[in-house]
């Protein structure tokens, strides 16, 4: 039986209830950004309407409320990823900034001439370029870890690269935004640690679909993108092991991140404040926390079951269309379905799907090395979320068949 629409969930997302080009919107671009449930929008609006004040600054009532909510949000995020301590969660403006923070601070302190940073071939540019900058500065090198044709990571190659020594960092994503591969980050972390390297896990696509226990996984750093897990845009977080965060120099500096300032000497505040200068995005933190609570309320089991079933259905139907090739077929992959069509370029596919009300991503998904490795210039990507249903997949297939017809 096809999964029936979880209508009660779908109706919680105001943006989904609209028509595009005269057709009901089939939003299948969730790996780019998810939609937000009304409770998240309301929580953010509520902050601005009732409690709006700067945090950690005033003694007045509103400032106290804002501070309490901001601190509570940090605890919610920490609990969601099973961090031992709320202060090991640093708020940032997104997953990209989280990784840049690590590369610029931990990397600056620890990467030396002749060192190596091992970056998986499937990485997003956000987990490649910061390491290129950090290694270039230090006179170190970035080395790509190979992948197989199904887009899974070559673990043996990783191990032998680690054995060569001087690998300081292994940078790998939890879930691949372009191929759907779910990497064995616990196993990768264990291997890296055995050889003296830390891991930077790009968790952008992880939180919305996978259970994350940073302590059990033993990861050093895990980056979070709020807008990919039903939270607001322009906000994110970084989990770092307390022992790393303590020793790292600040990333940016200014007010709020200091204990004392004089022109002779400035003493930095403790973690996490040390990494959060300036007025933070309080509504962003509140929105992310509400989004994570929403995920908890719905239940990851339910989310995974719905997404898995729709991903399977979508993949099977696409495979039946002559000329379609799925990019990314690793076992246990997430419901991110990238494909190419012999008949048409992804850009044309995207325009035709849009005319059917279907929102997908077309292009290179910020993963040039991965696409080069797979030998395709671009793909069309349908990425599924818990609020999608069989009708969305039907709309997608209608569009794909129309492409086949027009370009066949």
């Amino acid at each position, binding site marked *: 039986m096809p999964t029936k629409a979880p209508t009660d969930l779908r109706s919680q997302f105001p943006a989904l209830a609209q028509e595009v080009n005269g057709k009901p919107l089939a939003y299948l671009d969730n790996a780019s950004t998810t939609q937000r449930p009304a409770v998240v929008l309301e929580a953010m609006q509520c902050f601005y309407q009732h409690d709006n004040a700067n945090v950690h600054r005033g003694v007045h009532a509103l400032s106290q409320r804002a501070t309490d909510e901001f601190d509570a949000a940090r605890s919610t995020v920490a609990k969601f990823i099973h961090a031992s301590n709320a202060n090991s969660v640093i708020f940032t403006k997104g997953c990209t900034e989280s990784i840049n923070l690590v590369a610029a601070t931990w990397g600056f302190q620890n990467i030396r001439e002749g060192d190596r940073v091992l970056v998986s071939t499937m990485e997003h540019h956000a987990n490649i370029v910061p390491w290129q900058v950090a290694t270039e500065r230090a006179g170190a090198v970035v080395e790509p870890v190979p992948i197989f044709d199904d887009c899974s990571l070559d673990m043996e190659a990783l191990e032998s690269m680690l054995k060569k020594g001087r690998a300081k960092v292994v940078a790998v994503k939890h879930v691949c935004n372009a191929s759907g591969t779910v990497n064995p980050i616990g196993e990768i972390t264990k291997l890296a640690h055995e050889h003296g390297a830390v891991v930077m896990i790009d968790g952008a696509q992880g939180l919305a679909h996978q259970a994350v226990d940073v302590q059990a996984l033993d990861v050093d750093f895990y980056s979070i993108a709020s807008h990919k897990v039903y939270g607001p845009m322009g906000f994110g977080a970084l989990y770092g092991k307390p022992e790393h965060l303590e020793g790292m120099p600040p990333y940016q500096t200014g007010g709020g991140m200091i204990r004392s300032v004089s022109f002779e000497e400035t003493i930095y505040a403790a973690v996490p404040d040390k990494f959060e200068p300036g007025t933070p995005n309080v509504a962003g933190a509140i929105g992310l926390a509400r989004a994570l609570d929403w995920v908890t309320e719905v239940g990851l089991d339910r989310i995974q079951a719905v997404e898995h079933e729709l991903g399977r259905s979508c993949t099977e139907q696409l495979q039946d269309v002559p000329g379609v090739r799925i990019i990314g077929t690793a076992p246990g992959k997430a419901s991110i379905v990238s494909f190419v069509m012999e008949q*048409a*370029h*992804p*850009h*044309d596919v995207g*325009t*035709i799907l849009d*005319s059917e009300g279907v929102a997908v991503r*077309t*292009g*290179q998904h910020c993963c*040039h090395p991965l*696409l080069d490795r797979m030998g395709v*210039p*671009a793909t069309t990507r349908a990425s599924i979320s818990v609020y999608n249903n069989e009708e969305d997949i039907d709309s997608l297939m209608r569009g794909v068949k129309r492409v086949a017809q*027009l*370009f066949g």
Partner: protein
Amino acid sequence: MSLSELYQEVILDHGKNPRNLREMPDATHVAEGYNPLCGDQIKVFLRVAGDVVEDASFLGRGCAISQASASMMTQAIKGQTLAKAEELFENFRDAVTTQADGGCDHSSEPTFEDAFQDESLGVLSCLTGVRNYPNRIKCAVLAWHAMHSALHEGSKVTTE
């Protein structure tokens, strides 16, 4: 504006069977165009003698719109004077980047109908439908910008 106006037969035909898709060993002017958004890449070759474009060709991969546009461009400028090629570039660029509908006042700019009737554009006018698909305009102008820069500086251009 419907899809069939965007993907007219002539565009589909040029997209599927691009004309002048070949390298040109004796080119006098070469430039590459790259659209980082979609990964479309095009290399335009020109052989100019005196002030005439004797031959035009391209290599590259991309969507139907960018391939068709490149293909039709090479046909359109072959045998033309440099001044005429430049004029075509300007007319084409203006025609595809001028929004047909929308609330802004475009009264001083050429309208869709003007462009369509613009004889100087000839068959190229079938590409002006992209103006209603703002995120596809770059596909249509990629080859033209490459051609323009080949004539002017012979360097790599992007449409970003």
